[in-house]
């Protein structure tokens, strides 16, 4: 990141931190890199890292650049460095498949250990990685409740007050001055929240898709991540895909 970007990130975060985003009584800061910082608990939350997706696709013949895990971990390291949290929660699909952790290279393994040194790591089970992964450290849980907030991989159908989930990889599409922009985003109506995917090779699902729209009873907002700050748009200001 250039120094201007760093300044802009600080500014945005300070602006947010004054109040934070309210969710079921908790106050959360949205990090433009695609994470949540819950100051009261000193907790960083990330979702859908999809580590080793590159090597998983390579096994099927698409020899994509094998640098996705280190790219994802570099972003995570930045986030952790920014907040210096007590604990990090990864909301499932941390690895792209069950054997993903075995394929993680030694350099990436080292990077992960470094960024977790002195903090607690909680791996929440996802559909890609339902079981504990050996040799990674931290604890493995199916879901987690802290105060008013429930943390799980897949959002529950129906009302789910205080839920923070991943799984759906929300992205928002906007038409600005004749240009179509597509960005990863947080989707929330103030009672529940779906996090953007953090993985370098993780794709996206439009927030106007029924799978996401259906989670919210009425209006919700997309908070676009990536780059220097968070941009808020009402869900109906975002365009559906075809």
């Amino acid at each position: 990141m250039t120094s201007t970007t760093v300044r802009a990130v600080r500014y945005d975060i300070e602006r947010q931190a004054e109040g934070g985003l309210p969710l079921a009584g908790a106050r959360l800061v949205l990090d433009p890199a695609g994470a949540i910082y819950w100051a009261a608990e000193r907790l960083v939350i990330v979702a859908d890292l999809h580590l080793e997706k590159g090597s998983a696709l390579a096994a099927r013949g698409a020899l994509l650049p094998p640098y996705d895990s280190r790219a994802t971990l570099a972003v995570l390291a930045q986030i952790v460095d920014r907040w210096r949290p007590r604990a990090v929660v990864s909301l499932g699909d941390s690895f792209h498949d069950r054997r993903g952790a075995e394929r993680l290279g030694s350099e990436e393994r080292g990077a992960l250990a470094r960024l977790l040194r002195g903090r607690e790591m909680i791996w929440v089970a996802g559909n890609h990685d339902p079981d504990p992964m050996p040799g990674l450290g931290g604890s493995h849980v199916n879901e987690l409740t802290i105060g008013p907030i429930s943390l799980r991989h897949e959002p529950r159908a129906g009302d789910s007050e205080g839920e923070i989930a991943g799984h759906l990889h929300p992205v928002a599409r906007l038409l600005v001055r004749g240009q179509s922009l597509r960005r990863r985003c947080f989707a929330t109506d103030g009672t529940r929240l779906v996090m953007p995917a953090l993985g370098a090779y993780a794709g996206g699902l439009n927030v106007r898709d029924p799978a996401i729209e259906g989670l919210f009873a009425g209006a919700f907002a997309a908070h676009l991540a990536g780059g220097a700050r968070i941009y808020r748009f009402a869900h109906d200001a975002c365009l559906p895909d075809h």
Partner: protein
Amino acid sequence: MDFDRADEIALLPDPFAGWFASRGWAPRAHQLDLIAKARLGRSTLLIAPTGAGKTLAGFLPSLIELAARAQRRSNSPRPPGLHTLYISPLKALAVDVARNLERPAAEMGLPIRIETRTGDTPASRRQRQRRDPPDILLTTPEQIALLIASGDAAHLFGDLKRIVLDELHALAGSKRGDLLALGLARLRRLAPGVQTVGLSATVADPQTLRRWLVPQRRAEGAGAQEMGAREMGDLVIAEAGAAPELSMLESVAHVPWAGHTARHSLKEIYALIVANTTTLVFVNTRMQAELLFQELWRINDANLPIALHHGSLDVSQRRRVEAAMGEGKLKAVVCTSSLDLGIDWGAVDLVVNVGAPKGSSRLMQRIGRANHRLDEPSRAVLVPANRFEVLECRAALEAVRAGAQDGAVERRGALDVLAQHVLGMACAEPFAVDELYAEVTSAEPYAGLARADFDDVVDFVATGGYALRAYERFARIRPRKDGRWRVANPGVAQQYRLNVGTIVESSMLKVRLTSAKSRFGGRVLGEVEEYFVEMLSPGDTFVFAGEVLQYLAIVEDEVRVARTSATDPKVPSYAGGKFPLSTFLASGVRALLADPARWSSLPAQVHEWLDLQKLRSRLPGRDDLLIETFPRGGRHYLVAYPFEGRLAHQTLGMLLTRRLDRLRLNPLGFMANDYALAIYGVSDLSLAIAQGRLDLDALFDADMLGDDLEEWLDESALMKRTFRQCAVIAGLIERRFPGKEKNARQVTMSTDLVYDVLRRHEPGHVLLRAARADAATGLLDIRRLSDMLVRISGRIDHIALPRVSPLAVPVMLEIGRERVAGDASEALLAEAEEELIREATRDVDDGSCRAL
């Protein structure tokens, strides 16, 4: 060569001489020349104008040999294999030529089997063609790639004697040409004695095409200059036809300052259509074609049959137009470069070229589409759409009259195409690296290929070519014990076959006509780029396929539209067919501007415009770069006149605004057209120059092509698009990447993510090198920009003006403005957010601003 009657008889055996005589024809000199060259075993390039019997000339040697072979055939136990391979850039042309070839063969009673093979050929016939090949096979470059990648290639091509390459000038110099050149190299190995014939329109540099026809000796790292002594095929130039009759339409109406519609000349264009039997009206973009077609029908009181033809229309509709044209049923066709090449229509007696021709070679090609009788002149009228185009048309007229062609751009074979070919060769049979390198460098575009680049490509094909050797166990090709590389499994070969070709369409959606009431549709009108549809909201109207349509919805991969009577449709700004001004014509325009003595040939309005420019400012010198600075409407402008084409100007605009930004001169954005570039901002640039805070020589220093360019390029959307194309061609990404069939739960992953990861972690990767090379010659025109910066170094002619100059008006009127932003999309998002906030809070009294 001169032939007397005796030579002619010697060259033309029976039944050929008799056939010519029976039709009352005499064989043309170049046709006999080609027969003589064939006897000598020489590969030859034939340059001939349209209507010169070029195709027959290419096939006569084959027909003569095949007639002789048929006589011997009774004695031979084994049926002889494929004798002649004909390769055309157009499927339709291959089919048409086959038909034209059948006739003389039948009339002479030659027992020759002539067949075509295209994407449309049924699988059963394709299989049969491999088992039992015809004497002559007519096909396309993609089919060649498929055929040589199969295990029976050696059997199929072992007896090949001749290859005919039609419209070679249209293939050479493109990625499709690269693929074909590599295919030729393989064909020469399979059939070592094979002779090639290239058929081409007039080109500025026949040498390159002649080198295509024979194997090259490796010249690693050598530039074009050092390769002067390379092997070349022979050259035959046909006698030129009558000189074309060319004129520029001098419209009585006001000539617009900017724009490309030529609406002011509409009535005059219609009058030309009325006065001629059949007119081809060429325009430069599909959008112009749609608009002009609409306008013509609006005034078509006589209900003349006027049709539309461009690359986005449905194939069946295009074929219908072509067929109606062939039958002489049409009075005019409004078309784009989709008809630059193709089937001959004798009946066309006038070509109208609307808008600037952009290059003299393209113009000559288009003019040649009128009148295929050699002895009569082709007739063409140029219709400039704005004042600069008047200058450009004038320069083009002079160039065509002098027979001057645009210079060829030196180009190296693309590495992504090479990657595709290498995989194909492994599919055919295991290869040895040294042998394949020798074979590849015998192809003209790859003669200068460095061994290191070749090795990188092989490495890429095998395991992705990453410095982090993570994928050895997933390799697509592997060395055997004897060192030859083979495909790792049959699935790889299957994947290769689905991926062959170099044409990567941007994502296209079908346009289906339906009524506003029923959801289910009628016929498909054609295809539009996905990104165009992204700009539409339901209810919006646009022009397509000659109709005003209303956008209803997207259903799967189809755009559902209904007819509407709306009179003010949105303009479809879909891409395609925007050619930049050629370097050659640009220097013609500069020379014309710099020489007021020649202005008398220009229309009075244009003449006056230039006089006014001389009075108010200065004229751009022949070799200088004129720069004007002036204030207007609270902003300050810098206008430069490089005449290097829109693409190079856009790149220049990006780089200059970055520099001005660093100098804290607050640029806000820029506009570019083919002739000029205008940068606008809030700082007084005239003052900054006067005070020495802005040094124009330093601003335009060629070192901007270093770090500034790299930095900007890496982030640019153009680069991402280019990378995607290279990744598809090279086989990193399948054409139908997962995500094509979208359903609710499926998430889509874009190539942009791959690009971002790769450039951060391995910026020197072979695919990024391929993408950068494309960007340099293609969409960014960096080479041209670099030549210009060198040319104008120390020759900047600056003038500070109190107000906008006459010459600056056209570029100031350009619609496509580019904004300045470190990261454009960030700025756009912020802007959109603010706009929505303003909108949402407009009626709130206390002015507090609570977003959403």
